[in-house]
């Protein structure tokens, strides 16, 4: 998109609201504490701050792109509206019965997450469609009218409608909608056939309920925000970042607020994707590590990987299954409980465990000296010399290294017969191993080998751990971009207008119905492009086609990308070829016998990527003379090493620093292990590379040996 004038990116996070103003290729950013009672207050303050930094008038802001955790938090904290569900008779408890399984196998006292709506807010009507969309029991309008009166009396603000098989035939959902619209004016209504028209009732119903539940809150917030901004002189259009990594209009966001869930982290992935494009990196692993969690995402050909379902509000140690499923297009990220504040302990097997419990900001890690007695990852980083206790956060926070050492000694060393340094090494290795394992599993699940990947590291704790993570994963190159502290907000400014439409329709390739497919694609393309046009875009729109396929009989679909021509010519033999190619890539071989089938169809419409200006290559690099010397513990070598120390600001483009080295900036510290060297690129990125080319060609042998 090319928009003239200044653009503002705003990310409301759990602790800080990040605001970034961009004008004429220059960026100005600020962090303001999030104001929970009225989140728009922090935005207004941040906007004024960056405007005065940049010397521009608020009125000259041409566009505001906004992402927020408010939707996610409302779900986690259960602060939504009084919402009812109307569903098919016999299926009142779908969201409460979930998958009927336990997510923790060995805990006799496990508790299940509470459903978003208690049982007495879930109503049923007599009606039924079959799997082919044929009516088994017709819906009686008078029954719906009676129910509408009951709902009015109970005073619901929002109603979700989720009927069985409505993804094939939405007639009954529409009929209920019409009755409610007539009888309950002012009440917000969400249809499962609109919010998430995909098979699997638990996921679809829960997503629709989540949408209804947060809709009044989000809608009123967005209306208020628009008014406040106008009052402050910013009457430009406002757009919202969605979980799929694109932006949508304020109106679409108000209608489908569930699509705003996880929009902040999505911005981070878009930020990394943009850096990847500027540097021509086709395969990137983005690594975002903060205070409590680390997020990992695969980015191929400058596009973050996406998924159709994800889980929010996990209630039990980030465990899969302990949250609730939301089926919307989303950037596929792995989130694990590993951050600077993650606490370490020794379990009954004498194994060091790290996270997901976090020290938070109060009392914080032991080194904060605020009474924290349990060692956190930050304490290990202090003892290992990776963080300078006298110069943390540009010297604004004084750290107490002896508190770190004492906590490590007490909780780890004392139990394992290790000194505090060895204990710290153990803690750092375990947390790095946890993150490496998560990245490996994620790569394998997507049929990728990480050895050809480049890492892009951002977030406060990532540069401290990125070097070691690269060693563990056999990744040869890592970029640490500037401005990484407000990466998500910068990402918002890079995101295209986009909207993905999805449908479930089972079709075996042997019974491929070209006409039906063409009709389906037309309908979805219209839906997706209409959403993009609603942002006021009149230029070119690109469409991506994707089908999810499997062998009939399997339960796991794999995404198969189709070009516009492939999708539009709708030739089953071409589709089969593409599927088999992807299947071999993921699982090694095709399967003889069973037929291939398509289950889910997807069309994504988006505005073309801004032409990315490639970063100019360096003509020369100059080794930088060592200034001050420090030492840190190099985990890969298993010993303490003497390292050079540098300020990032004092490393202009072309500077080359050889590991072991420590590069400090205000918000974080980059640790360069002995195995790596770093070069400052023309855009300010620190480019971390392997010291010398690996000798062996076999990927496994290319991984460095660890502490032997």
């Amino acid at each position: 998109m090319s928009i003239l004038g200044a653009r503002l990116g705003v990310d409301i996070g759990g602790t800080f609201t990040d605001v970034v103003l961009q004008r004429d290729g220059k960026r100005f950013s600020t962090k303001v504490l999030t104001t929970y009672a009225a989140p728009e207050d922090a935005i207004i303050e941040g906007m004024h701050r960056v405007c005065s930094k940049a010397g521009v008038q608020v009125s000259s802001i041409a566009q505001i792109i906004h992402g927020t955790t408010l939707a996610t938090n409302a779900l986690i904290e259960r602060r939504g509206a009084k919402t009812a569900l109307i569903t098919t008779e016999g299926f009142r408890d779908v969201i409460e019965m979930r998958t009927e399984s336990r997510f923790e196998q060995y805990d006799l006292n496990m508790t299940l997450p509470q459903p978003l709506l208690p049982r007495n807010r879930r109503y049923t009507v007599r009606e039924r469609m079959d799997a082919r969309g044929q009516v088994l029991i017709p819906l009686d309008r008078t029954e719906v009218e009676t129910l509408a009166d009951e709902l009015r009396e109970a005073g619901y603000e929002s109603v979700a409608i989720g009927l069985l098989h409505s993804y094939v035939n939405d007639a009954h959902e529409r009929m209920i909608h019409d009755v409610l619209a007539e009888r309950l004016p002012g009440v917000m209504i969400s249809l499962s056939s609109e919010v998430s028209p995909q098979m699997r009732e638990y996921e679809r119903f829960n997503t629709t309920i989540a949408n209804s539940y947060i809709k009044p809150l989000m809608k009123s917030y967005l209306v208020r925000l628009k008014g406040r901004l106008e009052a402050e002189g910013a009457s430009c259009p406002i757009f919202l970042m969605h979980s799929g990594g694109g932006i949508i209009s304020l109106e679409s966001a108000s209608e489908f607020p569930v699509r705003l869930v996880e929009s902040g982290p999505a911005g981070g992935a878009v930020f990394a994707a943009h850096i990847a494009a500027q540097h021509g990196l086709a395969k990137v692993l983005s690594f975002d590590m903060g205070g409590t969690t680390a997020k990992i995402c695969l980015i191929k050909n400058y596009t973050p990987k996406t998924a159709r379902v994800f889980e929010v509000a996990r209630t039990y140690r980030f465990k899969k299954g302990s949250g609730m499923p939301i089926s919307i297009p989303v950037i596929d990220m792995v989130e694990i409980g590993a951050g600077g504040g993650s606490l370490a302990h020794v379990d009954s097997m004498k194994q060091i465990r790290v996270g997901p419990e976090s020290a938070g900001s109060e009392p914080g890690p032991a080194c904060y000296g605020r009474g924290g007695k349990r060692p956190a990852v930050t304490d290990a980083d202090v003892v290992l010399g990776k963080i300078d206790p006298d110069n943390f956060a540009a010297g604004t926070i004084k750290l107490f290294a002896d508190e770190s050492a004492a906590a490590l000694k007490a909780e780890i060393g004392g139990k394992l017969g290790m000194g505090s340094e060895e204990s710290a090494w153990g803690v750092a290795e375990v947390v790095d191993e946890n993150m490496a394992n998560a990245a490996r599993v994620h790569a394998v699940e997507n049929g990728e080998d990480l050895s050809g990947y480049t890492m892009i590291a951002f977030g406060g704790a990532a540069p401290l751990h990125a070097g070691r993570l690269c060693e563990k994963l056999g990744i040869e190159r890592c970029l640490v971009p500037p401005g990484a502290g407000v990466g998500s907000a910068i990402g918002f400014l890079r995101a295209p207008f986009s909207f993905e439409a999805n449908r479930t329709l089972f079709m075996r390739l042997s019974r491929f119905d070209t006409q039906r497919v063409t009709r389906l694609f037309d309908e979805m393309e219209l839906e997706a492009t209409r959403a993009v046009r609603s942002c006021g875009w009149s230029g070119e729109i690109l469409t991506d086609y994707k089908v999810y396929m499997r062998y009939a009989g399997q339960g796991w679909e794999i995404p198969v990308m189709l070009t516009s021509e492939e999708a539009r010519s709708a030739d089953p033999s071409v589709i089969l070829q593409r599927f088999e190619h992807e299947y071999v890539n993921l699982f090694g071989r095709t399967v003889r016998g069973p037929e291939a089938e398509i289950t889910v169809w997807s069309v994504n419409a988006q505005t073309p990527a801004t032409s990315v200006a490639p970063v100019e290559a360096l003509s020369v690099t100059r080794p930088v003379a060592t200034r001050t010397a420090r030492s840190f513990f190099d985990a890969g070598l298993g010993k303490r090493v003497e390292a050079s120390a540098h300020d990032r600001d004092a490393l202009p483009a072309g500077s080359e620093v050889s590991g072991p080295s420590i590069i400090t900036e205000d918000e974080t510290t980059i640790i360069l292990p002995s195995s790596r060297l770093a070069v400052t690129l023309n855009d300010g990125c620190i480019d971390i590379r392997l010291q010398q080319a690996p000798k062996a060609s076999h990927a496994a042998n290319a991984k460095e040996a660890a502490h032997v």
Partner: protein
Amino acid sequence: MSEISKVAYQVMWNRLISVVEEQAQALIRTSFSTSVREAGDLSAGVYNEKGLMLAQAVTGTPGHVNAMADAVAHFIRRIGRDNICEGDVYITNNPWEGTGHLHDITIVSPSFHQKKLVGFFACTAHVVDVGGRGFGADANSVYEEGLHIPIMKFVDRGTVNDTLEMIIRGNVREPDQLVGDIYALATCNEIGHRRLIDMMVEFKLADLAGISDFILTNSRQATLDKIAALPRAQAEGHMRIDGYSRPIDLCVKITIEEDGVLCDWAGTTGVDKNGINVPLVYTKAYTCYALKCAIAPEIPNNAASLEPFRITAPEHTIVNAVWPAPVALRHIIGHMVPDTIYDALDKILPGVAPAEGAGSLCNFQVSLRPRNDAAVPADAVRAEVLTFNSGGSGARPTLDGMNATAFPSGVMTMPVEATEQVGPVIVWRKELRPDSGGNGRQRGGLGQHMEVGAWEGYEFDMQAMFDRVHHPARGRRGGGAGAPTTIVLDDGTAMKGKGKQFVPHGRKVIMAFPGGAGYGAPGERRMESVERDLALGYITAEIAASEYGLSKERVAEVQAIARRGELPR
């Protein structure tokens, strides 16, 4: 290898657990059986070169816990150490040397590093069909239950055994799916192997001796420490359940010794003539699982952490059936093992064990076909649909039981919309069953209602696999019993809890699955909880009044509040 640091061992153990989880994920994504991909009925593990299990993925089924730990030793013995070569893949579905019935295929692959055998990977999956009479309790010997594959090479030094593949294809109902699953199992071992070798290269290991020793020593010690903290005591447990055609008594005696927990199943009813018998390996799995949940939940499963739990049963009891007893539905009895163990354990460790729950999964399979008393429609189809469903779990000492949630099995149910995509089946109802949780200070988890029929023009056989029809879950310490299983046709015709039964065109099967039992006397339940249960419809007004003494006026008030979409207080 003495230079390897303590920290390196910490990392490697962590890594091996991640490797088996990854192995299991790969299987879930490539297998064809609904039981694996939807329900999570699978296992994966890594072993050292002696065949000792070092790590096992935590999956939906505890039934494979010990079975997997024992399996590789059988493979080494049968194949012969000298005959184990790089590129081999071994197979079996032997119930006694695998995981308890012919429907579980176990695949073992040796791992070679630098031409030397360093370990093994094993995995197991519950497949759709292995021929014979099909999945059900009706067989009178294992010979009728399907094709038996003794331990043998499926791949010999890289070459697939085509003869075996042809025999398999010729003997099962869904050959593509079964063979597809066998390849999926082999692939998942291969993925584990590659990750193991990566790790060995990274840490410059020539063998797994050092890391095995580290894992096994620490696990054994941790388990022994947990056991040492228990009182030295002995107690007996007993539970009577439906069985197939006669009730079954499960009897166990637990003895806590200094270096182990002994469980002996003497006194248990003898083998049944139908396929609900249990090979000892499966009894061991659920016994061990129940004990570990109560005593050492956080210690991962491996050869050393399982060893201190020593389980015995006299041969020819239903929990130690020997060849050729029929064993297809061994899970029905197996899933009842933990509640029996807890009956005994509660006497040694009060305040830990839950009340009895639904126990076995409420599974059924329907075989649909066009009605035979009218013209067959042109595009008629046939289909086999297996569903997994759960009753309520037992109330815990301080918590209510879980509604419609499996215990001890951890498998998942399938979405109704997905089930109905498989064939001409219609699930008319699947929702919670009010008043089915046993009353008590802590209420038992609710069971569920299910109603199943077929499309217009179809009839079907219902293969029922239910227990607790005549023997509902018993309460603990004054808690009430859970509701029993019921099954009947919609015209009132009675049906049995187990076995294949015909359902004519136009009829539906009406089922209600059991609730978990209560814990503590109902009179001790907090009134807020009673009122909440009433408002949510977990209990009816009658139970609120008769069992918990809620006044008529308050019942009316609570119901009025609930109708406004609110909860009391």
